[in-house]
Structures are given as C-alpha cells and as structure tokens.
C-alpha cells in the first residue's frame, strides 16, 4: 500500500524523460498548480467541513503580492513569498475571525467569505496605479533556483517548470498530510462531524477553524505565486467567483474524502478542454453536465469511488 502510494509520484517524476511533448507537459504544469489550490482548499472544505469561497482571493492575493514585492523591493521570488504569506495570514485571520466569531455555518459562511473575496477582487481591480486594474500585470521575471551541482539557474522552459510545480504540489500534499494525520486533523474531523460534541471534549472550535482556513489560504497563495510566475501575467480574474467555482468543481470531481483526490479533478478539468475541442459555451455546459453526473453517481468523487477510501480521523 505504501509502495502504491509513491508509485504515481515516481511516474510523474519520470514522465518528462519519456514524454517530450511540451503541449502535454504544459497541461500537467497547469494541473499541478491548480491541484495545489484544490488540495489546499479541500483542507478547509472536505476535512474541516467549511465551504470557503475565499480560496480564489487567497490565490490572487498570493500572486499579486509576490510579484509586487519582487518589482517594488527588487527582492528574489523566494523572499517575496514571505510578504505574500504574511499578508495572506493577516487577511485570513481577519476574515476567518469575523466569520467564526459570528458562528457562520454552511451557506452563511460561504456567502460571507464570497463577499470578502469580491471585496478583494474589487480592490485589485480599482487600485490602478499599483495593480494596473483590468489590464493586469506582466511578470517578466522567473524564479532563480540554486541546486547543488547544477549551480544557480532561472526556472524557465517547460521541463524546469514541470519539476518546479511538481515539487510545489508534493509539498502541498505533504503539509496537508502532516496536519491531517496529527491531532490537528482529528480536531478538524471533530468540527466537521459534530461541533457541539467537539466543544464539550475541550476542542476550541474557533481556533481550529481559523487554523484550517489560514493554512489552506497560505497554500493557495503560494500556488497563486507559482501560477503568476509561470504564466507571466496576473489579472483580477484570478480572484473571481468563477475561479473559486472551478476549484470546488475539481474537488468534487476528484473526491473530497482524500488528500490527493482533488488532484485527479484538477487533471480532468484542466486536460478536458484540450482533449475535446469545443466552443466556450459548449464547454461550460459539458463541465456542468460532468459535475452533476459526478455528484449524482459518485458522491465521493473519482478517486473516492475508485479507492473506496473514507476520511479517517
């Protein structure tokens, strides 16, 4: 079982050696980065039971802050991740504290986080002299990485980004696995399943919800930074509702009961438009159809149905 768990990762690591199609590797890179967002969102949605609509905002805030730190302070990409994370933590704590202090649950939590998410998008859209509004920003820099043996080099080109985003995805999965397999993950499960009981067992539900929301948002912000520096542009639609809904669709499709399930959903929804050539309207309809069928036929998502795993505490 343990070997089986490492097999897909090993296969992904070896893939560029046998597959030289930049087109397909690019689809993988997008799947990895969106997979990071979906996996982190599932920490708060699938494992803590809170339907946050704020993850697109966290993704966008991460992208903008990292780039703006690089261009304003002339620091490296890696250093710029610090202010991006710090700002995400600060905003998550404020938004989360407001929502959880008022004990907003289910749809109320979704609606209020959505409002904050829109607020963030409108700030980005209208703060023209910093964010360049609707036109967005061009990101011409690439992160520079130093590796023993290889020296320092720019992460540029498809293969480099393939490995860079794969490592990002593995780190995201690792952080989620460590958190979820510890007592923190058990507190998240307790909150998801029975808040009243969790409280009488001494679990501070306010604090653990806030922790889950904040960790998920930091990871989404890091994914956003990667996305911006890979694609080379940032625009306000990063923070849009559509982006949030895409992430939710990935999680539902892949399976919210496991840590890696959302990655499967990210692959399907990223790859599908390239496999089937359709107009934008038809594509949206097809997505909707797939999502409806999945929820009806496979409530545990693709991976959940295949592996038959349930969420452990």
């Amino acid at each position, binding site marked *: 079982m343990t070997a089986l768990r490492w097999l897909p990762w090993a296969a992904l690591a070896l893939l560029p050696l046998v597959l030289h199609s930049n087109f397909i590797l690019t689809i993988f890179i997008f799947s990895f980065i969106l997979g990071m967002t979906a996996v982190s969102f599932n920490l708060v949605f699938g494992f803590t039971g809170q339907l946050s609509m704020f993850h697109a905002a966290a993704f966008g805030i991460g992208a903008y802050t990292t780039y703006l730190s690089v261009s304003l302070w002339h620091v490296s990409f890696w250093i710029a991740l610090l202010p991006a994370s710090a700002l995400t933590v600060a905003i998550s704590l404020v938004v989360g504290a407001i929502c959880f202090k008022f004990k907003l649950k289910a749809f109320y939590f979704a609606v209020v986080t959505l409002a904050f998410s829109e607020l963030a998008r409108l700030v980005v859209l209208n703060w023209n002299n910093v964010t360049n509004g609707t036109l967005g920003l061009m990101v011409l820099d690439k992160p520079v990485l130093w590796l023993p043996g290889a020296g320092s080099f720019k992460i540029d080109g498809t293969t480099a980004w393939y490995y860079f985003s794969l490592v990002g995805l593995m780190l995201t999965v690792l952080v989620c696995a460590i958190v979820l397999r510890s007592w923190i993950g058990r507190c998240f499960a307790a909150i998801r399943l029975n808040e009243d009981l969790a409280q009488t067992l001494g679990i501070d539900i306010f604090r653990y919800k806030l922790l889950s929301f904040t960790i998920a948002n930091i990871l989404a912000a890091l994914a956003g930074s990667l996305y911006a520096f890979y694609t080379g542009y940032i625009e306000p639609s990063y923070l849009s509702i559509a982006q949030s809904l895409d992430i939710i669709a990935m999680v539902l499709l892949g399976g919210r009961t496991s840590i890696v399930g959302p990655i499967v959903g990210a692959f399907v929804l990223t790859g599908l438009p390239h496999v089937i050539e359709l107009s934008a309207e038809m594509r949206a309809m097809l997505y909707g159809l797939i999502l409806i069928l999945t929820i009806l036929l496979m409530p545990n998502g693709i991976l959940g149905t295949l592996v038959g795993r*349930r969420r452990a505490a």
Partner: protein
Amino acid sequence: MLLEVIGLTRRFGGLAALSEVSFEVASGEILGIFGPNGSGKTTLLNVISGIFPPSAGMIRWKGHRIEGRKPHHIAAAGIVKTFQNPQLFLELTIHENVAIASHLRLKRQFGARRFAELLPWRNAARHPEIAARIDHVLALCRLDDVRDQFAASLSYGQEKMLGVAMAMMCEPELLLLDEPASGLGEDEIGNLEAVLRDLRAAATNLCIIDHKVDFLGRIADRAIALQQGIKIAEGTPDAVLRDPRVIEAYLGRQHARA
C-alpha cells in the same frame, strides 16, 4: 469545596428553567440529581458545562468563577458532560471517536510541544501512553470488541457507553452524566455501575442525573431534587426520595399524603 453553584437562574424567554438553584459538590462524592421530566436537570448541567450562559447566579469551580465561559474552557478546566442522547462522530470508528477525545490529555501532557511533534518523524498522536489509555478505556466500557466498527453501527446501550468512554478520555475531575442509565438493559446498567465505580476509584467526582431512582439511589452519596427549576430537597438519596415534596413531584399529591 470543589463545585459551588449559587443562586443559578436560567430563563428561556418567559420560562424560568432554573430558579435560584444552589448546591455544592464536595471532593470525592457522587451527587445524584432527581427530578421529573422538565424539572430543569438537563438545563442545569448545560449551564454548568457552558453550553448555555446563566441568566443570573454564580458557579465556582475550585474557587474560580466559571459561569458563562465557553464549553471548551470548562472542559479544559476539568468539568466534562455526557449527553442524554449520545452525541458521537458517527462516520468514524469507535477507536477514532475515543482518540479525538484524547485532545485534552495530549494538550495537558505536551502543551506547546505538541507543535514540535508535528514533524513527520515524531508523532504525538501515536504516543504509546495515550494509546494504552485509549485501550484501557475501551476495555472498561466493554467496547474493545467493536473498536473498529463505525459509531453509527452501535446499539443504543453501546452508544451511551461510548459517550461515557469519550468523557473518561478527557480525564475530568468532575464528570456530569445526563441520564446515563436511561434506555439501558439490566446487564448494561451493571456494566455502567462498574465503570462509575472505577471512575470514582480514580478520584473522579460525579454528578449524575437519572430517572432510574433505584440505580441512582444505589450509587449516589448525596442527592438533590429539582421540580420546575427549583431545588426542593437535599440530603442522602434515601432521605430525598422519602421527602413528601419529592414524592408529590413524581407521583402527584395523593401519594404524598398517603
């Protein structure tokens, strides 16, 4: 005095579920709380454990006021309550349910060091002492055979015992039990009594609400009786049950005169 409840009042709208209830729990005793349906027993435990704030009055725990504090603060301070209708994590196994309840134990034992234990090569969650404690509690509550079953599959009696097991895992100094024996068969009640005696031997103080007068009479050291939110009697269980006002509350006026 371990727990002092002074003039506790709780109103729901115009209805006073508790009016000026005062009593004490001394160290090392089992207090029984009698009363017919709707007499405010469950409300009393809910106010003590922080589920509802009181409308008036004071609760002192080891000399510190705790009324109106949040349930998790009160649980951490050492007062844990079981639910009348068992509250469980139904999707999880029995073992996982009890493991979640080890939260406070882990917190007390490790404090902030719990975060160092997050490193992948260390794991406080699998700490052998805590695992052994979980095994002990499961065995005591006779749940060790079903430990890998889902909580949703348990019988009512087992659900109740799981509720007690989870509360035990919190290692409270005062355990508030809300009708632990209701709905249990005779042998299950025998098992429950054995568990409660074990708890007492481990210096846990108990405060028990129950309808089963003979069960509570056997196990309690002292008792109080409530009717319509008012304390109407206090003393040994026998004396309380012979009190004419208690008999009247339970059975009506004719029986009290007879």
